[in-house]
């Protein structure tokens, strides 16, 4: 077994990196893959709460790097899925406690035992980003259809190219189809045209994402939800499957239907 290292990054904060990492990990593990995810956001850890594993932390990434524990001791095993593990970030240290070469060494030690190693990068373009990208085989950039998020995604895609970790693949998160339909949100096609990268997933805005993070139960544990389905699709695309992009259309009400019939192409 030799794992593929996937780093999830974004440039801008708050676009859904941690949610994406947690849900891709869940979706891959639910498909029988052996997965470990690493929280690369030292000082501001969050992957543990999104996965609902915050009460089981004993050791963290910095403890491993500084030799205070063995790698195995810092790996928290998820009880819901057989082969899902988390290596949490340290909460009371800063990003300089870990170097890019530490991350390469750590992932090299994990590669033999896993199918997938997912790294949740911190926002920004500094040390934490470079730490997270250094061991990556593939970098996923998460963005929202919103000016600041798209701009920062463009910047980060350029940096990924200059670190020779490209081409990055794009996840467009929190797409509100009703707003897209009335012309008040950038369409996936708009964002792809602007950023000129390969798309690997579109995740619709879905209340279930927050409801499930409230409970520490990532939305991908329930593949019936729209966001959950989207993350399962991305996981399958990572495995090399050709999965068509899902239809994000929300149900139209009768008036919307009518106005579309009377005025075709008018929207």
């Amino acid at each position: 077994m030799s794992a593929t290292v996937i780093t999830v990054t974004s440039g801008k904060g708050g676009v859904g990196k941690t949610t994406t990492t947690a849900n891709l990990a869940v979706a891959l593990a639910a498909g029988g893959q052996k997965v470990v995810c690493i929280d690369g956001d030292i000082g501001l850890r969050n992957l543990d709460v999104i996965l609902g594993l915050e009460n089981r932390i004993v050791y963290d990434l910095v403890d491993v790097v500084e030799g205070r524990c063995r790698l195995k001791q810092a790996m928290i095993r998820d009880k819901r899925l057989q082969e899902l593990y988390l290596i949490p970030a340290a909460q009371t240290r800063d990003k300089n406690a870990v170097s890019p070469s530490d991350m390469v060494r750590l992932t090299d030690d994990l590669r033999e035992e896993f199918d997938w190693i997912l790294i949740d990068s911190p926002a920004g373009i500094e040390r934490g980003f470079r730490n997270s990208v250094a061991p990556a085989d593939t970098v996923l950039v998460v963005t929202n259809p919103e000016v600041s998020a798209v701009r920062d995604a463009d910047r980060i895609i350029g940096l990924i190219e200059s670190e020779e970790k490209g081409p990055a693949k794009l996840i467009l998160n929190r797409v509100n189809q009703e707003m897209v339909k009335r012309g008040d949100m950038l369409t996936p096609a708009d964002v792809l045209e602007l950023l000129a990268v390969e798309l690997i997933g579109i995740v619709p805005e879905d209340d279930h994402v927050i409801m499930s993070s409230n409970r520490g139960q990532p939305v991908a544990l329930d593949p019936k939800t729209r966001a959950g389905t989207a993350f399962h699709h991305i996981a399958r695309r990572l495995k090399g499957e050709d999965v068509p992009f899902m239809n994000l259309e929300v149900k139209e009400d009768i008036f919307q239907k009518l106005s579309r019939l009377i005025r075709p192409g008018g929207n």
Partner: protein
Amino acid sequence: MADWLAWLAGKKTTKSAGAAKDRLKLVLINDRTDLTPAELESMKNELLLVISRYIEIDSNAVRIDMTQEGRQQRLLADIPIRAASRRTR
């Protein structure tokens, strides 16, 4: 529903996504080339100045644009030249 009512009332709804796309196009050009709009403008002016030292150009019809091809930026200049025979001097 609200859309339909607005449509019925004959109100023109402004589409903000178009504004987002247009603004982003320019911002991304500036970010990728590390040129401010003012620098880009003065570069264009200098270019034209140098060219017109050698040949007479139709400055009203000049077009210099930054275009995007994939993730590559390209500076495209379309500079019509006045025929020598029509030159006044």
